[in-house]
């Protein structure tokens, strides 16, 4: 999980891989992430032919289908710029599973390994590469954090999200019980085993609400959609926000450009 961070000057250009969920279901999270990157003076390139990292097929046992989709993505990054991904789960797929997906093809494997090194989860990029240190200008707020399992166990970026929130002087972060436990989404799991998935999501929502926070923050749209739609079905106004959206709001509050 530990990686060597690039040294040397700050990158001037990055690619943005939005993920299929952000593109179609939470575009505002993608826009906010891009805005924050641009605010740091970085040129954000959005390869127009990007679609999905291929994870749904991969985790369902259809590796050959995932390969087709992954291969299409792998051609989209001709320069060695960092590729910023606003999701721990998709970043984990591209960073850790792409090389294994192409294990039996030396050329593609080499390409996948090189690409894996370019992949940065959004919060990881902000903290470790850009080394941002932001001044919070929002009103006092209490939030809680839900980190995706891939962020926690594959990417180690649950620490980065926490560290970024800790920079915000007006934000009090409270911890939910069973913090490290999965929210029950699991991609196709939520369709295959709805009763187990619902039980897990229900418990997660309860734990988040019990903190008394006014909102929860997540750096993964999969978990966020799962939990927000669970809350909506309950008629509950408590909702989650993507980290990028929350950060942008905090920085924009004092009239900084957004």
């Amino acid at each position, binding site marked *: 999980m530990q990686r060597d961070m690039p040294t040397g000057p700050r990158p001037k250009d990055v690619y943005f891989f939005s993920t299929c969920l952000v593109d179609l*279901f939470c575009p505002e999270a993608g826009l906010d992430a891009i805005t924050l990157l641009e605010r740091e003076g970085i040129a954000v390139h*959005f390869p127009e032919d990007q679609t999905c990292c291929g994870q749904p097929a991969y*985790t369902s046992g259809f590796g050959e289908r995932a390969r087709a989709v992954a291969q299409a993505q792998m051609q989209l990054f001709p320069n060695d710029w960092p590729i910023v991904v606003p999701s721990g789960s998709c970043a984990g797929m591209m960073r850790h599973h792409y090389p294994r997906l192409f294990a039996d093809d030396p050329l593609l494997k080499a390409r996948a390994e090189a690409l894996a090194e370019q992949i940065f989860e959004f919060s990881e990029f902000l903290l470790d590469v850009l080394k941002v240190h932001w001044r919070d200008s929002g009103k006092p707020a209490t939030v809680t954090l839900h980190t995706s399992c891939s962020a926690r166990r594959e990417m180690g970026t649950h620490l980065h999200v926490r560290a970024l929130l800790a920079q915000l002087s007006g934000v009090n972060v409270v911890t939910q019980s069973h913090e490290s436990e999965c929210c029950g*989404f699991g991609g196709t*799991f939520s369709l295959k*085993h709805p009763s*187990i998935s619902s*039980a*897990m999501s229900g418990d997660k929502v309860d734990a988040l609400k019990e903190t008394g926070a006014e909102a929860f923050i997540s750096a993964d749209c999969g978990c966020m959609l799962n939990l927000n739609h669970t809350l909506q079905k309950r008629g509950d106004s408590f909702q989650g926000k993507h980290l990028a959206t929350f950060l942008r709001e905090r920085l924009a509050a004092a009239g900084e450009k957004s």
Partner: protein
Amino acid sequence: MNAPENTQTLSFIPASEFKQRTTEAVADAHLRQSFRSAMDFLMAKRAAQFPDADALEAQRALAEHIRRYSLSRLPELLEKLERQLTANGIQVHWAENAEQANAIIVGIAQKHSAELMVKGKSMVSEETELNHAMEAAGIAALESDMGEYIVQLDGEKPSHIIMPAIHKTKQQIARLFAEKVPGASYTESVDELIGIGRAVLREKFMAAEIGLSGVNFAVAETGTLCLVENEGNGRMCTTVPDVHIAITGIEKVVEKLEHVPPLLNLLTRSATGQIITTYFNMISRPRQPGELDGPKEVHLVLLDNGRTQAYADEQMRATLQCIRCGACMNHCPVYTRIGGHAYGTTYPGPIGEIISPHMMGLAATHALPTASTLCGACGEVCPVKIPIPDLLIRLRAEATHDARPGHAPLVGQGAARSALMDFVWAGWAALYSRPALYRAFVWLATRFRFLTPPMQSGWTVSRTPLKPAPRTLREQLAGRHLKT
């Protein structure tokens, strides 16, 4: 699908019923509450044993290495084990499947005209459903581990590999004892309940002709059977009756005695958060002339039951690294919700999901590997670093595809294959690997978002429908950003 040939059809729950069972289990508030608090307790106990993450990593790496090393030399070590045990006077039997194992044990019991067998905790004997076989042969088999005793008394199966009766409350056990144990009166005092059980068992240890136990580690070089336990019943079973039969899976062998402590150290800490169990038995031979106690005969039954299928595959061989600590189930959010019985297999939880397909065939078990969010909690705590999520993905693939070229088909290979799913994933791949098609698709999805179906399969059971945004990110970026 071909019926498993070298695996016996046990009284498992058919795959089609898995969903129904899990739905019922999840709806049982009482069950969920008791598993949640029991698992919280076990997780806290384990965590307290490993305050230093780096030290734990080093220990796990060593334990993994020992297990992988042992498996890399499995055939050779098994032969060595047999030679050494035989030299020590322990009789070794090989069983390809559950029926053979049971037949061997029934045969030994009949040779001694036994009427009663007392059993220490043995999950392998659960796997072969030995108690039924003994009963059919007219020989009583009595569980002596307190948890096993309780589930046997209630005609149930264990719901956890370390804590067989974890699904039962004190009150349920109190009622059970009052009802089923002659002379016992209702009490909710745990000490008194244990006292009742002990009184029954004490007599039986003396009366039984045969004692049965499992094995945690079998040491090839010295011919030693190591047994970990907390109640002393294991020691009774292996020393009081005249005949001791041990049963274990072929993967439990290690080469040297010095390979045991690193594994034992992690086993007890990972399982129950104990530094060491109350008892650690090392059995090397039967009673020798001039010795006053110990069994006159010791047997070891080595069971395959599908293990060689896992062994034959480079990736799936890791399944056999397992030392049966149960930590993966304690930390599994799915196990915590549905409990052990819903799986319908001897081994529940993550380890059950990756080993049961080898034991029972994929036709019967293909639903199990899908019952995971791949959250990775199991792999994170596994003391021997079995990459459980990767193995789940692998089994999902094997259940829905023909064998890969150069690989022998698994029992039940492709059992979950469906033309519909093949079609769905082919269509999905076509859409997501063709950017123009994808763009057209999301354009339409956003324009026709008002047509979003209100019922979306399992998703809307507890969630509002997923609805595309009014405009995709790519459209919102058009003209604003650098495009590549």
